[in-house]
């Protein structure tokens, strides 16, 4: 019995390693090219590895302004999403009504709609109401687009908080905002963190929304500025582009690692898969 099992494991290891290498090649290019001032399009070891590419892109124009814009847009939008989602999840999780189920199904339905398709009318609408080329307008739309999923996640986390404690708070005369703020949210702290971080990650990587809604270069977040950097320079400095890609990707990778334990295997889209 032992031998076949052992062989099974070897076969599985070999299969996985092949996939791992295939997935790793582009990532290896990214790391090596960022250390290579003469980087080309193919994977190669830098002749003399330096951090020069990083210091070259660490300027206001290339890195700091776009990253700050990303932070303002995504941070603001995340805050708005989390606050709205927490508020909305409260009655959905706590009270039964004929309203609850249709509302939740509508939310789930809109989670699935391709947001990409809405961007043309959103652009038209933003031109008419003068929200075009504003960071807060972009943040408002990002918040709305991410909201259905955030409500859904938040509601599922809130369902996990026992009702007994808040009922006690009610008897003590607490109003619902107090109950939500002082009793429920502290008890589901990790859940709120997951919603916030997940929302932030999704927004940080979003390209199409700011690409459509923002025009002036000084307002662009990193997702769009990296694209113009990539698309408009005649001779592309691949090493610098790789270095900037790493700087731009690091926050989301780190944040993902922070929540991966809770999102991990059982993630399955939090609650989107579980009714």
């Amino acid at each position, binding site marked *: 019995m032992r031998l076949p099992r052992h062989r099974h*494991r070897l076969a599985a290891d070999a299969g996985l390693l092949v996939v791992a290498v295939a997935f790793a090649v582009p990532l290896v290019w990214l790391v090596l090219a960022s250390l290579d001032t003469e980087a080309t399009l193919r994977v190669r070891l830098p002749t003399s590895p330096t951090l020069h590419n990083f210091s070259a892109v660490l300027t206001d124009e290339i890195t700091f302004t776009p990253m700050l814009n990303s932070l303002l847009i995504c941070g603001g939008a995340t805050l708005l999403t989390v606050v709205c989602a927490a508020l909305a999840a409260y009655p959905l999780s706590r009270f039964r009504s004929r309203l609850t189920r249709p509302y939740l199904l509508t939310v789930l339905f809109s989670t699935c709609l391709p947001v990409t*398709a809405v961007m043309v009318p*959103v652009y038209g609408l933003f031109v008419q109401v003068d929200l075009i080329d504003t960071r807060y307008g972009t943040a*408002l739309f990002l918040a709305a687009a991410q909201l259905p999923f955030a409500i859904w996640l938040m509601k599922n986390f809130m369902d996990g908080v026992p009702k007994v404690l808040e009922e006690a708070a009610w008897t003590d005369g607490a109003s619902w905002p107090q109950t939500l703020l002082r009793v429920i949210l502290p008890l589901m702290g990790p859940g709120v963190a997951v919603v916030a971080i997940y929302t932030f990650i999704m927004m940080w990587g979003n390209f199409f929304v700011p690409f459509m809604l923002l025009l002036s270069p000084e307002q662009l977040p*990193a997702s769009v500025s*990296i694209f113009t950097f990539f698309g408009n320079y005649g001779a592309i400095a691949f090493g610098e582009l790789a270095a900037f890609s790493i700087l731009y990707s690091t926050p989301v990778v780190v944040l993902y690692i922070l929540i991966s334990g809770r999102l*991990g295997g059982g993630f399955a889209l939090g609650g989107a898969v579980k*009714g």
Partner: protein
Amino acid sequence: MTSAVARAAARARRPGARHAGGPRTLLLRWSPLVPATVLLLLFLVGPIGYCVLIAFTDTQLTGQESASFVGLANFRHAFGDPAFRNAVVLTLVFTVLSSLVGQNTLGLALAGLMRRASRPVRALTGAMVITAWVLPEIVAGFLLYTFFERRGTLNALLDQLHLPAQNWLFTLPIVAVSFANVWRGTAFSMLIYSAALAGIPQEVTESAEVDGAGGLRRLWHITLPMIRRSIGTNLMLNTLQTLSVFGLIWVMTRGGPGNRSQTLPVFMYDQAFLKSLIGYGTAVALLLLLVGALFSVVYLRLLREEV
């Protein structure tokens, strides 16, 4: 704590205390829904409604006033437009290749292999696949661009193996972007299937093994039927995700060369903004939304069966 419970119980016993549903209480109770609902109405439902409106006009980017109602002309134009039909076909190819076949099968295979593999290999593979998923879309597109480019890594590797190199982004652009989408999106399927496989009771697999069922038979007769709901869910979400991919394709090929990797979102962008035909572009967007809505309804049905 005990007193808190007792008090709560006492309160619950008071007649009508919890279920008092005067209109004011009701309003107060549901008021926390207001901010989210307003935001959704203004920025999601509003644009979709606007989309429906504009799709029936000949609005152009320049001169908004001149727009007039044209009925179904945009849709008729779309179905008669070879470029639109090309985009539909390419979207189908892209979705089937990358999502139905690629992400789904590879994700299932990875999840299955991981259950047998040794811990370090499992961790390494998981880390690589998930990193590709977590990276921002543009970075992923850029990395895959360097991989498939004529002077890129893929051709360098083929050269080493004495195989003919190709200008992949030129000869097979839709295949290249499909591979890119597999690279980027497989992690999701892998996570869903890992969770699903972990949910299969050990005894079932073991008794099948004792009965002498081989690997393939076990997969077909036991594993797949037991995780069929996860398969449905995963296919649905993958398809919806793939249907709206824009950045990845835009960075790698911009829909080109010509329009040979122009999927519907790219076609929509091209018509609405590069050709300034907002009305026509919106009609395409509406069709895309309808397809998405159709899939979403099926998805909700699947979920409802499960509950």
